[in-house]
């Protein structure tokens, strides 16, 4: 494992990060978006350590969410969209788990969830918005009274109120802030002081991290801090917000990581072909998650040919001409 004096005991293995910072029942914010920068290494480690009763919060999440839901780690989700675009328009295990009642879901919109994290990051109790009047997103509540009003779940899903500054009727949707226990972020670079730099779209990772009580960052590379400080406009999070730094090359695989690798169509198609069946999904876990305790073991199993196939062109950030059928 990489050693780095300045990071000190913040630098750790996935095993240590999950053991120290993720507890049963935690509310966890998943960074990334559908097929991009999913925190896959920590997701798989959470499965290996058998965490239970987790409460996932996100805007649109794909592979990491689907895997953790399928493995039985998750009891509750708040989200806007569960799927991976064309590879699985609805998350395969997510769909099964919702239909069987294995998980409870509270639906919001992407803007709703973004604003809820933003409110949490600004230490605001709630935030107004103009999305969703008279929709079932506001009117149907997935979390019943047995869940509401306890812990981090507010009494109300959302409240339609009035703009207090308006002279005339001006309804607004009031959304409760989110302050998850843990945020999981996968970044391209972390400085050896803990400074985080995400390349490409940041999605909502910044607000998710700032709203959380603890932050675990996995990264492709740990680089000398001075190289990030030479161009600080490009940096994403200051070092003192980060609790754990985990060095995990290809840590978002099979989802993409801009300038490092594309999503892996072969693996995502394979997952879709096996995950719909309970036994097939169990075999997937037995083959791809449970026995592979290190990222090195996982990457050896993926194989060099596949990793080279999805390697990003350093100028455009993805793998041009990749067979994506």
């Amino acid at each position, binding site marked *: 494992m990489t050693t780095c004096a300045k990071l000190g005991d913040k630098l750790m293995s996935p095993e240590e990060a999950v053991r120290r910072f993720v507890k049963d029942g935690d509310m966890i914010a998943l960074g990334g*978006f*559908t*097929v*991009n920068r999913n925190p896959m290494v920590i997701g798989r480690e959470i499965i290996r350590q058998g965490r239970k009763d987790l409460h996932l919060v996100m*805007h*649109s999440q794909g592979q990491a969410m689907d895997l953790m839901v399928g493995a039985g780690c998750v009891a509750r989700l708040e*989200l*806007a*969209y*569960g799927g*991976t*675009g*064309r*590879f699985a*328009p*609805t*998350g395969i295990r*997510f*769909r099964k788990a*919702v*239909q069987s*009642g294995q998980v409870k879901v509270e*639906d919001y*919109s*992407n*803007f*709703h969830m*973004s*604003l809820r994290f933003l409110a949490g990051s600004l230490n605001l109790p709630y935030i107004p918005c*103009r*999305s*969703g*009047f*008279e*929709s*079932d*997103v506001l009117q*149907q509540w*997935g979390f019943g009274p047995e869940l509401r009003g306890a812990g981090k779940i507010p009494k109300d899903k959302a409240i*339609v109120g009035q703009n207090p500054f308006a002279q005339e009727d*001006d*309804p*607004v949707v009031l959304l409760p802030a989110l302050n998850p226990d843990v945020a999981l972020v996968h970044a391209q670079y972390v400085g050896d002081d803990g400074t985080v730099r995400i390349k*490409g*779209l*940041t*999605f*909502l*990772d*910044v607000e998710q991290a700032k709203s959380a009580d603890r932050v675990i960052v996995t990264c492709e590379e740990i680089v000398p801090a001075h190289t990030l400080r030479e161009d600080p406009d490009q940096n994403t999070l200051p070092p003192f917000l980060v609790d754990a730094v985990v060095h995990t090359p290809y840590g978002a695989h099979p989802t*993409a990581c*801009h300038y490092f690798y594309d*999503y892996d169509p072969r693996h995502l198609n394979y997952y879709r072909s096996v995950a719909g069946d309970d036994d097939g999904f169990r075999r997937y876990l037995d083959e791809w998650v449970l026995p592979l305790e290190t990222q090195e073991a996982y990457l050896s199993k993926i194989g060099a040919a596949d990793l080279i196939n999805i390697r*990003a062109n350093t100028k*455009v*950030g*993805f793998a*041009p001409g990749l067979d*994506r*059928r």
Partner: protein
Amino acid sequence: MSTAYTDKEIMALAAGRLVSNGDILFAGTGLSMLAATVAKRVHAPQAVVFFETGGIDPNLEELPLAVADPRVMTGTCMNSGLLDAFSLLVHRRLRTIAFLGAAQIDPYGNINSTCLGDYQKPKVRFPGCGGACDAMSQAFGVIIFMQQEKKRFVEKVDYLSSPGWLSGGDARAKAGFKRGGPFAVVTNQGVMRFDDKTRRMYLHEYYPGVSPQAIADNCGFALDVSRAREGQAPSELELKILREEVDPCRLILGPLPA
């Protein structure tokens, strides 16, 4: 001209024709990506495509398969995040047009992309509204893609994910929406629009070779076809750009016509 074309091809082109030069286009995955891209290349070069993930005006040299595809991050005027993208979607100075798809739609353009059956114990779960609820709530206008089927055009959606004209008339404004709403529904058989007063859906255009009655028969509610006219077949130029430039690998278009 008798060039054959597929349902997906005419849907992408029919929706693309609704784009005006200079529109700011909020694109989702699938057909909406094709419609926005083809419009830009055929007749609306000043149109700008952006994605809810934060990629603004990418070059789209390769077709993205998801809104978080790294291909939405290349050649952009800027890369940002969800909050920046939504700030554009809702911007009061911008004519933002969103393209959406759904599992069900009702006569007033309210759509469902969440579930079939009871929300608490759904028969079929879909991904959820994503940013569609936000686009329907706050974009300048919305174009909806649907398969023309009775089970999809329903009197009442099982779950109202994204609000259209609600119960019709001025219900949308009364609910608190300041602008927007769906203005067209593009299917594999034709294009519907919404009456200016009642806000109920009517058939605006049927594709060549499709009868208005066939569309009414594939609709689960009474559809006014009295105002319908025959639409234009795709031109050779439109098909050439769609097939050769926009989706040459046919990742979204699927097989060529037989």
